[in-house]
């Protein structure tokens, strides 16, 4: 197991180097880069002494963009290996600083969503599978299909219209209520933030339960029709135990793979939802950085996501081996 993990991690490192190169290339060739924008801005200032092209050359040297694609990448890689990711151009802070300021807001959002998703989708899926072709099966199927099909911005807008505009239960956007937040106790502050998380959490949960529910249902149906479930029934095992012990252990195997792989989604933020609800999470920061052509921060953030994806796959494989005795890692 250890040997396997080390081997996988080494492979992952090689994959990572190429992934990062592709990302760097994309950022590098993106039109309207941060440096260009900055150059035009400086050149159009009243009393500007240099033209935009001159500013551009100056700034390129300053930001290390004059070395060309390949050299630029290896310079970045060299410092990244040492753990230096440089300063974010847009936020005027070190990349790690921006990251640690923002990540926990996104983590909280995604963790709560994921827990809700698991708690709602898996029991619903099992129920639908047990009562196949019943009213509740069709209802959950239709409901989940509707949920999957709706775009994020639509659900968010409807929720805002109903709960923020009409009922006035929640604020339209933002993380805190600026009028009262400072006067609240610590616990009050927490509740205030939690209140602003309700609509974003509902939005993401509604969108994500559908697929997990359908996945659970399909797997459960397959397991329930298998011979060993019939054997369990023939042994006289009570129906509850057949479902929750014999069948669920087998349904869990593919589910673990899915959930292990979604480790990355805990940290990746929710770009659209955060933007819509004005949450200052990592998704929003990365979106704004990308639009601004902020190479150091985007590189740092995407590297983080790539590492998480690779580690997530490894974790999923390890979980798979732990859940299914037939799988041997070698």
């Amino acid at each position: 197991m250890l040997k396997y993990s080390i081997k996988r991690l080494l492979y992952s490192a090689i994959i990572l180097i190429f992934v990062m190169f592709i990302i760097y290339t994309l950022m590098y060739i993106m039109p309207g880069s941060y440096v260009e924008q900055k150059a035009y801005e400086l050149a159009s200032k009243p009393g500007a002494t240099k033209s935009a092209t001159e500013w551009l050359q100056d700034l390129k040297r300053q930001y290390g963009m004059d070395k060309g694609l390949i050299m630029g990448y290896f310079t970045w890689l060299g410092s990244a290996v040492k753990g230096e990711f440089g300063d974010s151009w847009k936020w005027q802070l070190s990349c790690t600083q921006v990251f640690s300021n923002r990540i926990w807001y996104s983590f909280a959002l995604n963790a709560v969503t994921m827990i809700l998703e698991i708690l709602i989708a898996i029991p619903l899926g099992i129920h639908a599978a047990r009562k196949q072709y019943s009213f509740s099966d069709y209802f959950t199927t239709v409901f989940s299909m509707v949920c999957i099909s709706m775009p994020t911005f639509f659900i968010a807008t409807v929720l805002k219209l109903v709960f923020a505009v009409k009922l006035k239960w929640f604020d339209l956007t933002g993380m805190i209520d600026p009028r009262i937040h400072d006067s609240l106790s610590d616990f009050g502050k927490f509740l205030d933030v939690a209140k602003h998380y309700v609509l974003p959490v509902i939005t993401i949960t509604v969108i994500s339960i559908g697929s997990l529910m359908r996945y659970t249902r399909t797997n459960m149906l397959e397991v329930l029709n298998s011979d060993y479930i019939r054997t369990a029934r023939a042994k006289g095992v009570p129906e509850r135990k057949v479902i929750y012990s014999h069948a669920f252990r087998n349904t869990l195997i593919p589910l673990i793979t899915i959930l292990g792989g979604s480790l990355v989604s805990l940290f990746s933020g929710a770009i659209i939802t955060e933007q819509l609800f004005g949450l200052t999470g990592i998704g929003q920061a990365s979106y704004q950085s990308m639009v601004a052509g902020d190479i150091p921060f985007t590189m740092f953030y995407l590297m983080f996501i790539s590492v998480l994806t690779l580690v997530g796959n490894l974790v999923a494989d390890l979980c798979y081996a732990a859940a299914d005795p037939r799988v041997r890692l070698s």
Partner: protein
Amino acid sequence: MAKNDELKKTSQIPEEPEKKKKKSAYISGRDSRRITRFNRKVTKKLEKQRAAANKNPDLYMTRMRDQNNVVEFDNVCTYFFTDIGTVKAVDGISFDVPKCSTVGVVGESGCGKSVTSLSLMQLLQRPTGQVVGGEIRLNIGNGQAYNIVNTPMEKMQELRGNSISMIFQEPMTSLNPVFRIGFQVDEVIKLHNPDMTDEEVKARTLEMLELVGIANKEGVYSMYPHELSGGMRQRICIAIALACSPGIIIADEPTTALDVTIQAQILDLLQNLKDKINSSIMLITHDLGVVAGMADYVVVMYAGRVIEKGTAEDIFHHPAHPYTIGLMKSKPVVGKKVDELYNIPGAVPNPVDMPNYCYFRDRCEMHCDMCHGKYPPEIKISDTHIVSCYRYYEEGQILGYPKTVNVEDL
């Protein structure tokens, strides 16, 4: 599942050319809706009736006709309410399983052998599959018996694995892949003997593993099913089936999925165990050789009905029904050289739309004038030998006609 097998059969069966009815391979949208509505209505009603019967011990406690039988099938009708119509998988079968004997049930694929056994275990996939008529009586001693058809699920869970147990035909998939062998055998012992301590349960499990001929019992106890071969897994399934010393063991084609040498070993094992334990075996197979070697009594099924039953001697040496005679002719015999093995012409009628005359008439080489009448009754031609064929109408004693259930009346 059995249901799917039935469906597959239906779709494969070619339409008889002389039939003037519309082709059943194609169902119009209106017919399909009508069938679905009818099925929903009937199954709902049957489920309601069952729920009512489950509450009333008078309806599920009964008496055996003969105390020396372990199980009596009395005119059992098991129907599947499928989207293409009602499939009469088992339609009025009657036979007994006497104590400490082996009853072989033979017949071709899709003739209702497995459905009969699943009806006995109440393992049919409801609400599609329903026992709509007849009684299955299970002897529990002191003159009492359960009528399995109406027995509630809680009682059924006590009986399964304890009084009736089953060995399935697919050992490769019949054990749960994520649990250790020890756990799976322990489970059934623990369920039916709640007083036993864990040590006693384990001791019993090891004893069972030894009984089914597993040499490395301690090792196998902590192994997973995928670490064992097919033959070993079938031994484990047999151990699970025997663990609580049931009155009857249903072996549903226990050797079909195994290669020939392992088949021989498993059959030897069953044969030896039969003498050691006081259980009856209901051996379902389409291998006549297996039946000849093991069974005391033989039941021959065709298209959901019993067409002939008797002792092994009766069936193998004096087969009476043309179908049985055909079967005997079609099996290869060592030392006898033939160019081509005999085969019975034609195919089984469509189970959705059975004829009202003898089901075998259109394939029968010996049919007579009476065969154009209704389905033949059971005719007793010796003390032990019963056959459903008009050829014996004059000489034998007529016992009665199989009672079918009219689904429209349900």
